[in-house]
């Protein structure tokens, strides 16, 4: 259950980033979680809500973009998302493929209320 630490890191980042928007309120933060990041989206949402409650960041929503493992087939060139326990190419069945994503744990975006000025960008 390390999602509480991860959620805390997200909130630290929101606090740091919001200085760029004086007078604006950050309503939503978007986080991209890959299947291989080792982070459970439900646990993450639960921890996030608990940490935000009663703080100056409220109301702040979390949007999670969950991404599966992705590969590019070396045999036929197809790019594809792998199913949970099978990473073979769905087009040609080849197992010879290059890993192309699905381990990310990234802050994707912030949604800031209208009228806020973006400082220093």
């Amino acid at each position, binding site marked *: 259950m*390390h999602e509480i630490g*991860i959620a805390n890191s997200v909130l630290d980042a929101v606090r740091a980033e919001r200085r760029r*928007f004086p007078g604006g309120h950050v309503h939503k933060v978007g986080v991209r979680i890959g299947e291989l990041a080792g*982070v459970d989206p439900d646990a993450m949402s639960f921890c996030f809500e608990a940490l935000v409650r009663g703080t100056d960041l409220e109301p702040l929503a979390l949007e999670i973009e969950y991404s599966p493992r992705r590969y590019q087939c070396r045999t036929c060139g197809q790019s594809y998302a792998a199913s949970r326990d099978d990473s073979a190419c769905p087009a040609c069945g080849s197992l010879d493929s290059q890993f192309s994503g699905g381990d990310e744990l990234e802050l994707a*975006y912030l*949604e800031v*209320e*209208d009228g806020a000025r*973006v400082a220093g960008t």
Partner: protein
Amino acid sequence: MERVSLERKVLSENDRIAADLRARFTEHSILCLNLISSPGSGKTSLLECTLDSFDRRERAAVLTGDIQTENDAKRLARSGFPVKQITTGGTCHLDARMIERALLDWRLEDIDLLLIENVGNLVCPSSYDLGEAAKVVVLSVTEGEDKPLKYPSIFFKSELLVLNKIDLLPYVPFDIAVAEENARRVHRDMEIVRVSCQTREGMAEWLSWLDCKRGNSRAAASTS
């Protein structure tokens, strides 16, 4: 509503410290490995056997992580090599800052193999880079063959799978070929060694994998 793109890593602070550790390990030609498994898969036993097989002049050291107790450090210290316990006090994984702090009073000049035993957990440790050259996942034959499918993150991120407790194979319904196939479904190029810390079967393969990695880290230091 305005949407502002950020595109930065959530654990950027951990990654920064890990990158700093990695640079220091390279500078001192230290091979650092991060051992991860479920509780009870035999990480400590594997380390005991490993240290036991070393000549006393080897410059190996161990950091061992647990939520509570100094038991593992006490076990491993019998080898005579420097061992330090990191007690996380509830945290389910080690992070880069814990490693940085634990190394403060060790001279890196005196070490060329640093083995980190993570907290027993197949999920959380996989998210934290500790500056290691490679992660090693340990799976014992008393667990399920489908663990690589259930915990794909750690099997994907580990360079080597150590299948441990193979002396118990006659007594448990564990299909080792299926376990290996599952690991390779998640991580196609995964290297695998089968070991028993009781009979020492497979220890030679594990030690030769270690030697090979140590050769690589010396080569990296001499070219940097």
